[in-house]
Structure formats: C-alpha cells, structure tokens
C-alpha cells in the first residue's frame, strides 16, 4: 500500500483533484549531496573536466572530444516522435555528477540516504537472497558494488565501467565502441562524449555464470542526464545473464537518459540481457543497444518498457558468424502522455543465422506505443530464418498503436515471416471471466497479465512478481 503511504506523507492534506492518481510509486527523492556537479549545458571544457576527474588515459579523452564534435554536427532524427525530441533542451542539463562517496563493497557501509532509496524500492534483501552481484548506480557513478566470491574465483570481471577502464584498460580499449561507434547516431555521440558509469563485464572462455548479474540505475538530481556505458564481452563458449532495472523519482522538469550498451558474444558464447525500464514519466529514454553475435553464438534481449515520457530504443543484434542466433522479446506499456517507441533490429550477415522477435504492447489512457523494427539479410547469408511477431492491445479509444516493420532481403535462400495484430481486449474473454465472478477491472488485469506472459515467464521470479505488481498498479481504475 505504498501509494496510500505516499499520500499520507504529503504535508498538505488538501490534494488538488488532478494530482490524485498521478503519484508515482517511486516518486520520492533524497536531498542532493554531491561532491561535484558540472554546470548545466555541454561544452568542450565539461568533457575535458569529466575525463580529467576520472583520470582517464589520453585515448579516451580524444574519443570523447571527437564524439562531442560529431554530436554537435549531427542533426536531430527526423523520425519517431519529433515533437517530443525537439523539446529537449541540451543546454539545460547537468552532464556529470559525482556522488559523495567512493564505490563500496559492503552494504552496511552504504550511506543511509542512499540505502533508504533502495530500501523503499524493496531491492537489496531480494537481491542478496537471489542474486550474485549488485552494481547499484546512483547518479553517474557506481556506489555499491559487490561480487560474490565464486564469481571472482571463476575469473569473471564485473565492475562499473570507470573502474573497468582503470583496471582492465587493454580489454576495454580493444572492444570499446567497436559495436556502436560514436557516429552511429546523435545520442550515441552524446553518450560517447559524456559517458559515466554503467557496467563492464568480461566472462572468460567456457565460463558459465549461473546467477544473473544485475545493476540498478537511478536518476536523482533534477535535470540530470544519465549516460551510462555498458560493455559486456563473453569469450568463446561462455554464458552470462545481465539484468538492468530502472526506477526513478519524479521531478518537474525533464530528464534525459541516453545509454549505450554494447554486447560482444564470441564464438559459441551466449548473452542474455534483461531490462525492466520504469523511469518516471518525465524522463527521455533514448538508448542505443547493440550486440554482435559471432559463429554459433546466441544473444537475447529481453526488454520491458513501462516508464519514461518518451522511449526510443531498438535493441539490435548483428549476426556475423554462421549459425549465430538472435532473439528480442519485448513488452511496452504506454499510459497517459507516454510514447513507447521501441522495437528490434536483426542484421543477418552470415549464413544459417536465425532470429526471433516477439513484441507485445499495450496502450492506455491516451498513451502511444510504436513498434519499429528491421530485418536485414545481406547477400550470401543463405538459409537465414527469421520470424517477427507483434501484438498490440488498445485499452481505450484515446490511445494509439503503430507498427512500422521493415524487411530488406537481399538473399534468395531465406525464410522470413512477419505478423502483427492490433485489437482491443476481447469481449468474449471479458464476458467469460466476469461470468465467473471477476469484476471488469480484475478480468482486464488478468487478460493483460496473460498477454504479457510470454515475457514475464522469461524473467527471474522476483522480477516477474514485481512486473505483475507494476502492471496491476498501472491497470488500477483503468476500466469502468
């Protein structure tokens, strides 16, 4: 009943009518307490300062400055939700904040105000019980970081990106920005210029990481941009599952979140990357995620988008070696004033590669979901098999759903399938459930949960439970 509690916490008892129902479950925030906060706006000096504070090698500074040039030159995308994109004021954003303490190893040592944030989210206990390492990103830098001993014994590197660069420069330099170059798009260029934090994972050959690795990301300061950079390298024959989950406090003005995530699955390796994105409703979430799968490798993106104001995210997989396999499983939920513009891209660059995309979306209360995807098959990528399935549910007449799939097939020996449906909740299903004694709300929530089931069943138990709870919250009072 945290919703009720949040309301009681309010100093003024007389809430205005339009505030009711708007209270975001995780909408509390701590007083700011920062050692360094860069000025608003983006300049060459700020980029140099970020790099200097992190004591980075020269090549990284050069990379950042080159990326800044590219960012300044690149025009805004002219597709997607241009109206929302053009509302972003790049000069009114903090590009770097260093939190008040260094990375911690023990939970007990984490300062109370940060602990409180995590406690209210109900995260740490669950994680300790179920999960291996915790990289909790608070603002731009990792504050809590623990790796279970058996991971260390296996030789797995699981660090925040800044530490990764310091401690394993050779590995980072070899792989960094090889999957997503700075010039890929305007937002990857921005991230490349000002990145901070994120995860760095290296899994040695043949090592299977049994327990999912996970990190929580939070945005805290107003107008704070988060530009984390994640790089996961799975050496031949290894396996790793990484989980990224987000919640953020509500603020009045817009926040920008622009991550770059690069995955490299070497021959026979398997990477699964799970995201549950629940940024508060004022966050722009403009993310570039891309994976390369070499021979016999397998990459899976499991991607859930519930929060944010505008999300534009199209996890991509480049299948570059024979028999590589890619899967993208995604759900999107758009409520009032939200636009979830998500999708998937699979590039078949080698023979016998296969891919599956399943996308499910729900629009409610004037929300808009868009599926935007690409299947590309290059010449000589023979015996490619690809299947794309998009289903959308519309819960009321104010909402909108779009499907923009693209298939570019330059090879004959392939089998490509695409299907999409858009519909409302089936009256017969509702009638059946209600005739068994459920209210319309309960019945609708049940149908929605069932609709998302192919996604939730791929999540670890505690995430599935949390997601179902989130959906129930979203659905409350939505019908009737």
């Amino acid at each position: 009943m945290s919703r009720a509690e949040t309301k009681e916490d309010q100093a003024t008892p007389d809430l205005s009518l339009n505030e009711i129902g708007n209270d975001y479950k995780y909408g509390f925030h701590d007083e700011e307490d920062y050692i360094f906060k860069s000025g608003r706006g983006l300049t060459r000096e700020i980029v140099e300062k970020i790099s200097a504070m992190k004591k980075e090698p020269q090549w990284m500074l050069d990379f950042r400055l080159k990326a800044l040039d590219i960012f300044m030159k690149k025009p805004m995308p002219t597709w997607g939700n241009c109206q929302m994109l053009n509302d972003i004021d790049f000069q009114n954003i903090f590009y770097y904040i260093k939190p008040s303490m260094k990375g911690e190893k023990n939970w007990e040592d984490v300062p109370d105000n940060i602990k409180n944030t995590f406690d209210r989210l109900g995260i740490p206990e669950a994680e300790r019980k179920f999960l291996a390492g915790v990289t909790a990103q608070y603002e731009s830098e990792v504050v809590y970081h623990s790796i279970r001993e058996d991971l260390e014994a296996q030789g797995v590197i699981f660090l925040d990106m800044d530490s990764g660069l310091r401690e394993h420069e050779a590995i980072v330099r070899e792989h960094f920005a090889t999957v997503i170059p700075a010039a890929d798009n305007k937002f990857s260029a921005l991230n490349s210029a000002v990145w901070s934090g994120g995860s760095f994972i290296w899994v040695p050959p043949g090592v299977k990481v049994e327990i999912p690795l996970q990190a929580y990301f939070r945005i805290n300061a107003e107008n704070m941009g988060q530009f984390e950079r994640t790089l996961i390298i799975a050496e031949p024959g290894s396996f790793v599952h990484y989980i990224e989950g987000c919640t953020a406090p509500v603020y009045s003005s817009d926040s920008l979140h622009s991550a770059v995530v690069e995955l490299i699955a070497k021959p026979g390796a398997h990477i699964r990357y799970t995201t549950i994105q629940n940024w508060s409703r004022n966050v722009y979430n403009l993310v570039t995620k891309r994976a390369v799968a070499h021979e016999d490798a397998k990459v899976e993106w499991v991607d859930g988008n519930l929060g944010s104001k505008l999300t534009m995210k199209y996890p991509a997989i480049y299948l570059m070696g024979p028999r590589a396999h890619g899967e993208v499983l995604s759900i999107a939920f758009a409520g009032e004033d939200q636009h979830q513009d998500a999708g998937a891209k699979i590039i078949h660059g080698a023979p016998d590669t296969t891919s599956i995309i399943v996308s499910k979306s729900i629009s409610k209360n004037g929300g808009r979901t868009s599926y935007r995807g690409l299947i590309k098959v290059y010449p000589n990528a023979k015996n490619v098999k690809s299947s794309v399935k998009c289903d959308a549910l519309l819960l009321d007449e104010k909402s909108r759903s779009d499907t923009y799939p693209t298939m570019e097939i330059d090879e004959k020996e392939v089998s490509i399938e695409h299907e999409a449906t858009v519909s409302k909740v089936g009256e017969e299903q509702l009638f059946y459930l209600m005739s068994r004694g459920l209210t319309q709300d309960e019945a609708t929530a049940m149908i929605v949960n069932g609709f998302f089931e192919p996604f939730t069943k791929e999540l670890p138990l505690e995430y599935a439970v949390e997601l179902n709870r989130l959906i129930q919250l979203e659905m409350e009072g939505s019908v009737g």
Partner: protein
Amino acid sequence: MSESLQVDNLQVSTIAREKVEDLCRLNGEPNWLKDKRLSAWESYLQCPMPTVKDEDWRATLVGKLDLGKLCPAAPLKEGKTASTPALLTAALKDLAKPGAIYVEDYASGQMSVAVEAELSTAKVVVSPFAQAVESHKAVLEKLFAEKRGIQDKFTLMNEALAGGGLFVHVPKNTRVEAPVVMMLNLPEKATTAAKDPSGLAVFPRVIINVEENASINFVSIVASEKTAEATETVLAASVVEFHIAAGAKVSVAEVTNLGPEVFFVNRVRAYVARDAVIDFSTAGLGGKQTKSDIETILMDRGAHAAVKGVVFGGGAERYAYNTIAEHAAPDTTSNINFRVALKDKSASIYQGIVKVDKVAQRTDAYQSNKNLLLGKEAKADSIPKLEILADDVKCSHGATVSPVDKEQLFYLTCRGLTAPEAEELIVTGFFQQVLDTIPIQGVVNFLAALTSDKLHKS
C-alpha cells in the same frame, strides 16, 4: 516527325507559366481548369524532387530521373490509329465484350474512343477529358473542389501538365457488366544506339465518377511498344481517381507492362462512400521503375476496399508499390493482398499502411504481402505498417519472403516433373490465388497468360 510528339522546347524541370497557359489553350480548357493547373504548377515548382532518403521513395531509382531532359508529349489527335496495340488485341481476346474502348496512343500521336450502344442508352459517359469539361462541367468542378489525398512532386506535375485524359460517369442505379477498357500505349525506341538528349514524358489522367448504387468494371492497360521513332518515353506520371458514391461498386484491373527504359509513377485514389466498394487489382509486369501508390479512403460506414497485387519482376526491373488504406469512418473494412515474385536481378519494395482514424471504430483491416525470390540476385523489401488511433478494431498483417519451397519442389519432381516445370507450377499457383479473386471476367486468363510468358522469357 519525332518533334511532333513533343511540345517544343518545353522541359519538365522548369516550365514557364506561358507554357502551361498554352497547354490550356491547345486543349480548349475553361478558366477554372486553367486556374487549377496554374496553382498546381506553382506548388510543383516549389515542391522538392523526392530522393531515396524519403521514406516513400526508399529503394527506388528516383535519383536517376533527370527532369531537365524530359519534354511533355503534345496533345493527341482524335482518329483511328493505324494498328491496334498488341497488348490490347491480346486483352480483347480474353475479356468479355467491352462496353467501351478508349485508346491513348502516344506512339502514333492519336487517340480514339468507341462506346457500345448498351452504354450510351444507359447514359454512361466514356469520353475524353477535354469534351467532358464542357458536357459535365458541374460534376467535374465539384470533384476538383473536393480533392484530398497525398500530393507529391509527380501528382502536381500531372495536375499542371496532364495531356488528354479519360472521364467516365455512371449515373445512379446503373449497373454495367461489360468492362470499360483503357489502353495507354507509349513509344519505345527500337534501338538504344542513338542517344537522344531528351525523352518523352506523358501525364495520363483518369477520373471515374460512379453515382449511388451504380457499378462498373474498368480495365486499364499501360504498355510500351517499340517504334521506328527516335523518341523514347522516359516518364509516365499518371493520376487515376475513383469517386464511388453510396452503395456503388467499382472493380478495377490495372496492367502495367512497360519496356526496360520507362519510369512509371502512378497514383490511384479511391474515395469510397457509405456501403460502397472498391475492388482494385494491379499487375506489375515490366518497366524500369514502377512506383505506384494506391490510396483507398473509406469515408463512410460500411465502405470496403479490396486491393490485390501481382508483381512479377525480371531483368533489372524495379517495383515500389505502396498501399494506403485509410479508415476515416466507423465500420469500414479493408483487405490487401500483394504477391511479388522476382527473377534475375529484379527488386521490389512493398510498403503498405493501414491508418485507422480516431472515429473509425469497428474497423476490420487485413494486409498480406508474400514475396517469392526466384533469382539469385533478386531483392525484396517489405514494410507493412499500422497506425491505429481507435481501440475497437481488428487489424493485422502478415509478410513473408522466401524462395520456392523445397518440399513442394521435391513432391512435384517425385511425380515426374522436371525442376523447371515444377517451379513454374509453383509460381503459377502462387499468383493464381490472387488472380482468382479478380471479379472482372476474362482478366484472370489474360494475366495468367502474361505471367506465363514472362516466366518463360529468360
């Protein structure tokens, strides 16, 4: 002689106002039409030339089209042409007895129209546009005033420079079974050796107005023929409009069979009123680049659009079909079925969008695009899109790309067929499923023969 096919010194890229006015004078057009032309001409000059970066023109050869080298065709003279174009003869063999035949032959500079008594007594009008402007002034003025739909550089070009054009009018409650056949014949150079600095551009225009509870069948054939002339058609930019009143039904079969140098830009618009039906079939069988946009606008309850496509590419031909199914009213339905088979180096991009407006509750829309790759270097792109703003809808689409099914091949070769025979049977069957749904008698046989010919042509 070749000069007589062109309007002197009139380039498509930069047209002076006087030239448009001259065109009006030559056609004897009234002032209101001249104003329309001039306003289209102004917008045309301001409208930038599309590039492959425009979503609508992706994977096309639009960049290779140089408007500066094109001259519009001179207005055609009425009269019997020396010989009937070959494809028309072939079509007439298969079709049921036509109700009217309208020919625009740019190879000979002639046009002709023949209407059967059956149609004339029913007061069905099939006439050149220039005559209709006088006889059906009120109707045409109303239709022109109502215009909506997508405008681009080529539609504006057509509006400003349209040469002749066909007008068909079917009065209330009149149901005509015998098809109205239109033949558009374009000259092709017999030899490509002599490089001509300029090519011919033609701007065909068709307006078909069908009143309440009436019905008509319309067959349109666009083809090119090799001539001894030095003039070569480079661009045909046509606009075809159907105004379908409440309860009316229009069935259309459109066949494009152009030579390897012709760039064909086509825009079809169908305005479909309450309980009215458009059943539109198109066959793309040849051309350097075919770019066809088929807009069906369902304007009132109960309106239905069926759009079917058969595209068979060979050589280096390119096709870009774009279907736009707009549901602007509740209880409307649409069904789109596009099948594409590609030989050699041919390429196709199919784009289709189903748009459901906020008010269009209980829309039922289906869109299917199947691509069969026969050539090693053939390319197929498919972009079926949905934009849904209402909630009580059933919208779905499916798309596939694949080569000939190996199991089917195996099965057929086991029964004693050679591999090429088996493949032929499979391709024929692939198209047949669409052809069988074309309601105009005889079109199936005509198209089956054309696809079969193309299948054997190496």
